């Protein structure tokens, strides 16, 4: 079913890219947020195509359901009327464009002419034994247990930090 894969890839890629472009160019912050959600959906789809089912689910639940909702709440809290009427782009946006173009050119160079460009070994067409979640859980809780625990600590710190930062009076 490679034909389906190809079609779905292009659909999801289009979603991701167009969503990204529109995110960075909208005047209204809410619009940017909506378009970011679209882009994230596209990325989630790409995960699914790559047989990363767990990440697909986590992306949607966590990223879109958590972070983007948070963004929207903050957009609500912050008065953006005045901001949306002002100039949107930097004074030095051309410089940014030039730098990014340069970096892009270099990446392109690497991707096309760099050593061993796209000489990928014949990939494992068939996934190994066990489903994605099982395999993920195996690795996560055996080899990456410490980073896992540290990640939870990080989240705790982030929670405390964000609460304190956002309070009117500590």
């Amino acid at each position, binding site marked *: 079913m490679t034909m389906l894969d190809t079609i779905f890839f292009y659909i999801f890629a289009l979603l991701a890219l167009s969503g990204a472009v529109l995110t960075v160019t909208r005047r209204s912050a809410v619009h940017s947020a909506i378009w970011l959600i679209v882009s994230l959906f596209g990325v989630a789809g790409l995960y699914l195509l790559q047989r990363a089912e767990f990440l697909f689910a986590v992306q949607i639940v966590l990223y879109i359901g958590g972070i983007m909702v948070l963004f929207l709440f903050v957009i609500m809290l912050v008065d953006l009327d005045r901001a949306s009427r002002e100039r949107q782009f*930097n004074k*030095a946006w051309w*410089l*940014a464009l030039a*730098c*990014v173009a*340069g*970096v892009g050119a*270099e*990446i392109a*160079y*690497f991707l096309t002419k*760099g050593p061993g460009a796209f000489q990928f070994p014949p990939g494992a067409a068939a996934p190994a034994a066990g489903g994605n979640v099982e395999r993920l859980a195996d690795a996560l809780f055996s080899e990456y247990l410490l980073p896992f625990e540290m990640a939870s600590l990080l989240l705790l710190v982030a929670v405390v930090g964000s609460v304190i930062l956002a309070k009117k009076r500590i």
Partner: protein
Amino acid sequence: MNFLELIWLIPLFPLFGALMMLLAGKRLDPQAASEVAVASDVEPVSAERGHGHGGAKFLISLFCPGMVLLSFLLSAAAVFQLSSLPEKTHQVIQFTWLAGQPFHMAGGGMATFAADWGFLLDPLSSVMILVVTGVGFLIHVYSIGYMAHDGGYYRFFGYLNLFVFFMLMLVLANNYALLFVGWEGVGLCSYLLIGFYFHKKSAADAGKKAFVMNRIGDAGFLLGILLMLATVGSVRFVDVNQALTSGRFHPEIAGFGVLSAMALLLFIGATGKSAQVPLYVWLPDAMEGPTPVSALIHAATMVTAGVYMVARSNALFALAPETSLIVAVVGAFTAILAASIALVQNDIKRVLAYSTISQLGFMFMAAGVGAYWVAIFHLFTHAFFKALLFLGSGSVIHAMSGEQDMRGMGGLKDKIPVTFRTMFIGSVAIAGIPGLAGFFSKDEILWQVFSSPLGSKSVYMVGIVTAAMTAFYMWRLMFMTFYGASRADARTQAHVHESPRTMTVPLMALAAGSALAGWIGVPKLWSVFPEGFRAFEHWLAPVFEAAAAHRTAHGAAPHDTSIEWLLMGLSVAVAVAGILAARYLYLIKPGLPDAIRKSSGPLYDTLLNKWYVDELYDFLFVNGLAKGGGTAMANFDSVVVDGGVDGAGWLTRFTSRVSIWWDTWIIDGGIRFASFLVKVSSYPVRILQTGYLQSYALVFVVGVAGFLLYFGMR
């Protein structure tokens, strides 16, 4: 008892006496403080005080002369024992006084300097110690009477004993270094004794003058000793004589070499000590001291130290004919110069002083022509009659209540008969009348000067003329002092009295010596006398072997007896002529001298003023050095020293200006430049500090781009 081993004691007796005087004398002497110089330039012999001796003074009078007597007795005993030895020389070395490291001599070879505290008794030193202690003892006895009135009695005897000690060290030493110790020591005692009446400025000045002139000579002497050390390698007499006679050194006939220089330097030392030209001017001034001092030091002993030293170095002088000639010529010149001055002096002691200088000149004449034993013989006889004459003059001065000018004397021969008779004998002796001591020695000198291969006829001429002058001035003195009518004032005339026995007995003893001492040196010409009458020459022969050998090598003196008789007759004739001339001028026609004086004005004045030599020295050295030196120092100070200081100041100001410039422009400039650099370089950097979040992010991206570029390039 082996007295020869005890010769080291001989100098120690008088040293002990001097030490006793130093430690206890002040307490013993009731008149300890020197109450001197009441009258300005007259010896303080106060008639009012009388001739008494206190009890303590008696102790001193017994002790100090007694020490000298002990030395004399020990010397006599030692000499007696020496005469029985086959090899008439005996050394007693007590310890090594100075020791040095080995050093390289001038002509290669190694030597080690060592000076012993050692004593040598040989014929020459035996003659000297007998003269020093014998005549010294007599003069000590004389001083008991002479110095009875003066304060500082203990001091006088202490100094006198100290002098005898140093003189004995000088003549008994077995090496030049210890001799030099004695040499310096007698110079010191001479200074102390000349300036005995230290309250008198003239006496103090005379003492200084004597010491300074001595020192000039001593510089030469010391150089001579050092040169000897470098050339021969030792200062011990036996070693030096051995080296010089060994044939290692050749006589310097051709010219002036190291040996001649050495001998000349030693002779310069002798010049200073024995008052020869040019260093003689201190001796007349030394008459400021008490008369016994003049007798002992400046007639009999100290001034003869130079002659002794030259005689001791005869081996050296034998190898240096040029220097020997210089010695003879200087001796002759001094003799006639001094005699000419003595002709017109009016102070009785001055006449005798110049006479001493003149007679010393005779001794050096003899030494210069190689007749060393004759020089010592004349030293021997001269000690007797010159001491006698000085002591006699002291007695005269004592009788005349301190008057020293002969123009104020006269007619004393009946009033002080003992003094007169003894001085008569002394004057006859010095004039050179046959039979008395002076004749034998002086005549022998004149003959040697004439006939020796090293002598010369012109020196002889000078000698004979001087002999004539000697007779003349001596008898001028006698006639002016003793004969004729008295020219003194009534009070002085009334007080004329003979001296006490302590003074007259030494006079008599010395007179006996003056008469008889010559009979041990009878000339060979008088063959009627057996060899026993020539004992002096034989006794001294071993010491002067080297010189004698040298003379015979030059060809023995032709003993033309007829010439010798002729010359002997000539010397007697001039002596008699001198006496008769003096008699004529001063006894028969007393007004004549004044007439001569007036007619020969400038010549007379020159002689009276001692040929203006003192004035010349004063101008050249004293004023020249003092004033010229002072001006030079003032100039040096203002130009060089102050200039230096100013220069240093200018330099400091200049360097400070440089420092200011450096500080302002370089140091501060550096700092300011650093700050300027920072300011200038901060402008572009400041642009980076926008405070904008996104510009920092841009920098991130640019960094990433650069990173990728780097990896792309690789």
